[in-house]
């Protein structure tokens, strides 16, 4: 009887109004902080929007960041479907970047149509392998995946630093970075494909298309294969998985390897698309943002794309805001991003129960008349 009271909200409230209210709250709180610093919050918000969508290159940057977040959002989401909290997107992305760089370095003389698939493979294999170790420890040894994936982020960062000050270091460079990748490996900017449709020049590149293909494959895999079915069963009800003969060990391994592969592909955008070299800290916390993206996107393919776009806009607009308003420091922008993550991810239910009450009251008289 008591279970009747949950989830009786219309879809548009669940997937439209609630995320909107969460977002609005985050911006109102941010606005108050900006106001308390003596700046005009409305101007700040319009600068943020202007910075994210106001001119061609801004749009391109927004898409560029969104590409990152689609990959890392998928990495969190796939694991979450199996009930696993993958905090290791950061480390998996780092290792994926290493895999991509090694692939294009080894295959430097190959033509693009071979080299780029090779790079995709390199990123996926390295990212997947990096996730496979915590997955194995969870499946066979019961080491908690949250702890191990966090630890593996640090290990990956150290490995990257070692490689970039050692074996992969660019000749004569002071800062830790690799040599430039071969031209054949560079991903074309999206303006080359869609320039005719008015797509602006900028950093957004064809890895966005690869990301969208991954989103489709994610949907297909989770909803249309028995592996995906098994992953969902393990995530929703591990006991039922035992009942159905679904091996949770297999599910943990498969879902984490795929998650790691998705995170690993983030390197395509950064290494092949924009930087054209491997630098330290190129993941810049995008792996963690993936957690918020997956949450806000409700682990739904379309939701992930939309949430990634939102975070892309906040990242790009936020940087622009810090740029335009001297008293809005980069730390304040991080705070705004944190508020969105907090309200959209962690506190997504704050408006749920009041809204349910409102809708219950709203529905009652209409039933009575009918």
């Amino acid at each position, binding site marked *: 009887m008591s279970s009747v009271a949950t989830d009786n909200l219309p879809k548009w409230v669940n997937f439209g109004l609630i995320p909107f209210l969460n977002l609005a709250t985050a911006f109102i709180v941010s606005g108050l902080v900006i106001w308390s610093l003596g700046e005009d919050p409305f101007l700040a918000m319009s600068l943020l929007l202007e910075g994210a969508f106001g001119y061609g*290159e801004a749009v391109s*940057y927004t898409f560029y960041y969104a590409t990152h977040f689609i990959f890392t959002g998928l990495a969190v989401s796939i694991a979450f479907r199996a009930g696993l909290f993958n905090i290791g997107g950061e480390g998996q992305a780092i290792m994926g970047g290493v895999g991509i760089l090694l692939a294009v370095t080894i295959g430097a003389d190959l033509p693009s149509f071979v080299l780029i698939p090779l790079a995709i493979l390199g990123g996926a294999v390295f990212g997947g392998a990096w996730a496979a170790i915590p997955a194995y420890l969870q499946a066979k040894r019961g080491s908690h995946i949250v702890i191990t994936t966090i630890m593996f982020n640090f290990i990956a*960062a*150290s490995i*990257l*630093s*070692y490689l970039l*000050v050692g074996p992969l270091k*660019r000749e004569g*460079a*002071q*800062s*830790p*970075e690799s040599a430039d990748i071969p031209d054949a490996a560079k991903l074309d900017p999206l303006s080359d494909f869609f320039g005719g449709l008015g797509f602006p020049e900028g*950093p957004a590149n064809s890895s966005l298309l690869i990301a969208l293909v991954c989103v489709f494959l994610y949907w297909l895999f989770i909803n249309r294969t028995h592996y995906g079915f098994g992953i969902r069963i393990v995530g929703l009800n591990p006991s039922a998985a035992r009942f159905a003969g679904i091996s949770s060990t297999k599910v943990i391994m498969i879902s984490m390897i795929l998650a790691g592969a998705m995170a690993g592909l983030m390197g395509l955008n*950064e290494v092949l698309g*924009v*930087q054209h*070299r491997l*630098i*330290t*800290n*190129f993941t*810049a*916390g995008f792996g963690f943002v993936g957690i918020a993206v997956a949450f806000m996107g409700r682990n739904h393919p379309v939701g992930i794309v939309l949430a990634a776009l939102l975070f892309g806009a906040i990242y790009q607009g936020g*940087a*622009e805001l*810090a*740029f335009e308003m001297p008293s809005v*420091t*980069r730390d304040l*922008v*991080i705070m705004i991003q944190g508020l969105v993550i907090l309200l959209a991810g962690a506190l997504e239910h704050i408006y749920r129960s009041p809204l349910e009450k409102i809708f219950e009251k709203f529905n009652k008289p209409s039933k009575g008349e009918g």
Partner: protein
Amino acid sequence: MKRIIYVILALFLVASPQATMADEPKIALIYDLGGKFDKSFNEAAHNGGVAFESATGVSYHDFEPASEAQMEQAIKRFARRGYDLIIAIGISYATPLRKVAEDYPDMHFTVIDSHVDMPNVQSVSFKEHEGSYLVGMIAAMTSEKQKIGFIGGMDIPLIRKFASGYAQGARSINPDIEIIENMVGASPTAWNDPIRGGELARNQYARGADVIYSAAGPTGFGVIQAAKETDNYAIGVDSNQNHLAPGYVLTSMLKRVDRAVERAMLGAYNGNWHSGVEVLGLAEDGVDYALDEHNEHLITDDMRQRLAEARAKIISGEIVVNP
């Protein structure tokens, strides 16, 4: 080269607030990851900007990138808006600046501590080894146990210049002096890890060193803190850090990033900015040791005398300090 200083001084006098030119140059200053107020390298750049602003009344725009990935975006953003001069501070800017400079061949860039060989880029670096030579001498002349330490941020060529000059300076006083050398880490976090800096310093002091020179950005705060706690000496770096713990900071190796920044800005203001490579050493007043009210009692007249002699010999070429 002393002329430059005179020119600057002259400009200080000439430039007055109302003497705003018809078209003020648009100048941008982009810091390294340490951030504007790191009491060290970036803050020196900031001070240079402030000095320019107060001298000319022309304001400039600055930006602190949040990650390496944002560096290129930041330079581009200024370039796109048609800034007359974009100054980037730090070793990480070599590649991003080169890329943007290629895309915007008509714009002017100054990069500090990096080397970008482009017709529209001015690369400024310093002879850190020469300044380090002087503080190495001070360390050796002060150390009672004839055992001194060096803590570097990362094992990169830039930091090796500091270490090398320091060791040469110390050995010029006592060829048998013992030098303990440590690097903080292998990743850029090494520049921002005062905890680790403090640990390494305490360790070196425990091993008998009584003066430690740190060339590790804000990580050096930990070294200075450890000096104060263990009643030993530390040597600051980049900016004058003597005031951070008066009596415990023996001196600071000044790297005049502030002057380089100010000079580049004035160049844009006066229209005499030029591209090319500049390396600033003792002769150009690009490096020095710090002497102020916090440490004047620590540096004796005798020491000052010997330092002045060494400086003259380095400038004249009699002493060659290897990087």
